[in-house]
Each structure stands twice: as C-alpha cells, then as structure tokens.
C-alpha cells in the first residue's frame, strides 16, 4: 500500500499506509491526524481539510479543480501549494506523498 506522510504544524509526523483510491483526507482521519477537520466529510464545501503539498509532490498531486480553487477561498494562509486533501485521491504514483497541515482550519 502507498505511504503518505503528514507533518502537522506542531511538528508531529505521521507516516501511514493509505488505501488506493481513498482520499488523503480519509487517510488522515483513519490515522488520527487531528489537524485535518473535514467538517463536510469530503464534499469540497468546507475547506477544513486544507494541506500544503510538499514542493517535490506538487506536480504529481496535480492542480486544484475550479471548484476546489473556489472553496480554498474559505481557507486561511492559502499558498501556491495549497490543496484540499479530500480532493486528492491516493494512487500508486503518490506513494511517498508528503503534506503539511496549516496551523488553523477555521475552527
């Protein structure tokens, strides 16, 4: 199974196994990465699963869809490598993905 590393804003590192086809947000919740809130449960409507994709992975993770870009307007400290983790599906290509969480998800 592919591995995903979450680096939380307080420095806590979680390297976890991810199910193929699951989203990065779901992977975080299954592994108690508490700085991913995911209030809407993956609907791309709340912007509380915001992550910064590690520079090395930005291209592979891809760019946000127009709907995701719109929803990022409701996130804070948005950067060029910002994504909503509910919109990134885990594939073999993303084995080793590294994402960082912001200090605040809006709640």
């Amino acid at each position, binding site marked *: 199974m592919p591995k995903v590393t979450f680096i939380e804003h307080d420095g806590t590192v979680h390297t976890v196994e991810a199910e193929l086809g699951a989203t990065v947000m779901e992977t975080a919740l299954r592994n108690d990465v508490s700085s991913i809130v995911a209030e*809407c449960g993956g609907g791309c*409507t709340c912007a509380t699963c915001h992550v910064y994709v590690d520079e090395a992975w930005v291209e592979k993770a891809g760019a946000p869809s127009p709907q995701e870009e719109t929803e990022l307007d409701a996130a*804070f*400290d*948005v950067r060029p490598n910002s994504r909503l983790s509910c919109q990134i599906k885990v594939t073999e290509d993303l084995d080793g993905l590294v994402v960082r969480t912001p200090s605040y998800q*809006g*709640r």
Partner: protein
Amino acid sequence: MSETIKTDVVIIGAGPVGLFAVFELGLLDIKTHLVDILDKVGGQCAELYPEKPIYDIPGIPIITGNGLSEALMEQIKPFHPTFHLGEMVTTIENIGDPLYRVTTDTGKTFECKSVVIAAGGGSFQPKRPPIVGIEPYEDKSVFYAVRKMENFRGKDVMIVGGGDSALDWTLNLQPIAKRLTLVHRRDDFRGAPDSVNKMRALVAAGSMDLRIGQVTDLEGSDGQLTAASIKDKDGTVSRVACDAMLPFFGLTMKLGPVSDWGLEMEDELVKVDVSTFETNRHGIFAIGDINTYPGKLKLILSGFHEGALMAQRVHHYVHPQKRLVFQYTTSSTSLQKKLGVA
C-alpha cells in the same frame, strides 16, 4: 420583547432530522415550532452538500441534499410547522413539570411542554480569520455580519473574501463608506457574475479599491482598528488604513449554547436514553448527530428512527390524559385524515 409563543414542542434545528420530527410528532397531534440559525431549512444538507448525492436514505437510491430537504418539506406540509430562521436558541428554562421557556438571540420566547434538540453539529457560525490579536477588535471594529449599515457611514471599510457575502456588502456599503477596500486572495470571484461586474466597474471608476492578497496583521488600540497589513502574491506586505473590517470566509459548525443547558454531555454530544432519546432533563430530547449513545451512528436514517421513538415519549408530556394507540399510515383512517389523504 415580543409576545411569548405557546406551542407543544420547540425543535432546535431545521435539518433533515428536525424536519422529520415534525412529521412523527404531527401524527400524534403535537404542534411544533422550529428554530434554526441558518436563513434556510435543511441544515448541513443545505449548507454543506446541497448538490451532492446521498445514497443511503432508505427507499431512495439517490437524492441530493436540497432534494431531501424539499421532499421533507413536502412531507410535513399537512402539519403546518412554523419556522423561525436566522435565530439561535440561547436558553431553555424550566418553568413547570415539564414546561419550558425557550429564548432566542433575537429575544423571542416560547413556552412549550417539550424541547427537541436536533442541532446536528451545533450552530453554523462565521469562520474567524487566524489573525493574531483579532479578538479585541471583534464586535467593535471587526464584524462578521452587518446589523446596521449606518454604522459604516463615513468609515474606511475593508471587506475580505470573494463570495456573494463579500461582494454584496461591497456594493451596499461602497456608497456610504469613506473608502472601501475589497481584499481577496486571487483575482477571481465566486460570487454572482452581475455583482462581480458591478464591483469591477466601481474599481475601474476609482470609486473603491480591490487588493489581491491576504490580511496578515491588524493595527489599532482598545478594539478600534486603524490599519491592516496585506500580503500580496509575491510576498510584499503593505498597509491599508481601515477603521472597520468585515471578513467573510464562510461558516463552520460550533457547538454553541447547547453546552450551557445543563445536559449530560460526552465529547460535545448530548447523552440520551436510547428508548426515548430523552436527555437527563425530563422533557428535553436530543436526536440526530447532536446525540450520543452506545453504538451511535451519525446517519440521517438513524436520526429519523430517533425522531419516531422520541415522539412516543413526547406524547406523554403533551397529551398526558390521552392513551397512545400505535397506528400505521397505511391503514389508519385517523392518521390519513391528518395527512389530508382520507
């Protein structure tokens, strides 16, 4: 203060579970008023996933959040519930056995025999921007809603956000503000195209300012803003004078006043008896995502079941003299009359 509204039951929350509770209570001749902080019914179905399909409503293979809300509104029509939208219940006071006085943040009061809390994840409240030191300015010069437009007359107003709320208030306040600055993180707006065009025309005419960037810092004292710092895309920080700020970053769910109501709680959820969904306070019930019990699943269908059982117990409080005979809508003429089909 307005006159007290007397009713059988006040339902707090007009999401799918609160709406279906109207149906179950209505079949037992129990009248309802619903209060919701949103300006529309449907709760999370309306606010978080209006267009997303739901696949696990029994008997309905696929329906959107809006579709479910609309279908429930149709289903409860025969019972004529009264809605109080855009209001939040703040207190529940025990004034009888059981008789409750329920008060909202607009000062409206109800007297009712039972209260049903169907508040889901709590109340939807504006997201607070993570600007260090913003708290002292809140409700003094930083506002999450406009209560009185006049308060912004002659001021340097800064509006932050790119959606309809930000654009609507930009267009409404620009004529009366001394100078209005709209700040958004990108030069693309998700609001109604007509509002975007009007805003751009004002910018082109030099009547307001549009800044692309994010607010990083506030200046002022004693709760009164004097300026804000804006960081643009290439990291350059600049200062903009402002004495009022309106940030619009959407809503988030907060538990809100539920925790002040003397209810036994666990992990911000209300503990209930699983045979009646009554809380530790007699006559106060909790159904749907807001409650907890062993084996609880946060599913809409669970909330529907909880509402049906809750109604049986509420009947004891509302009609203590009447014996409750269990009936089916398929065969009971009396229930069918209530539904207006017999």
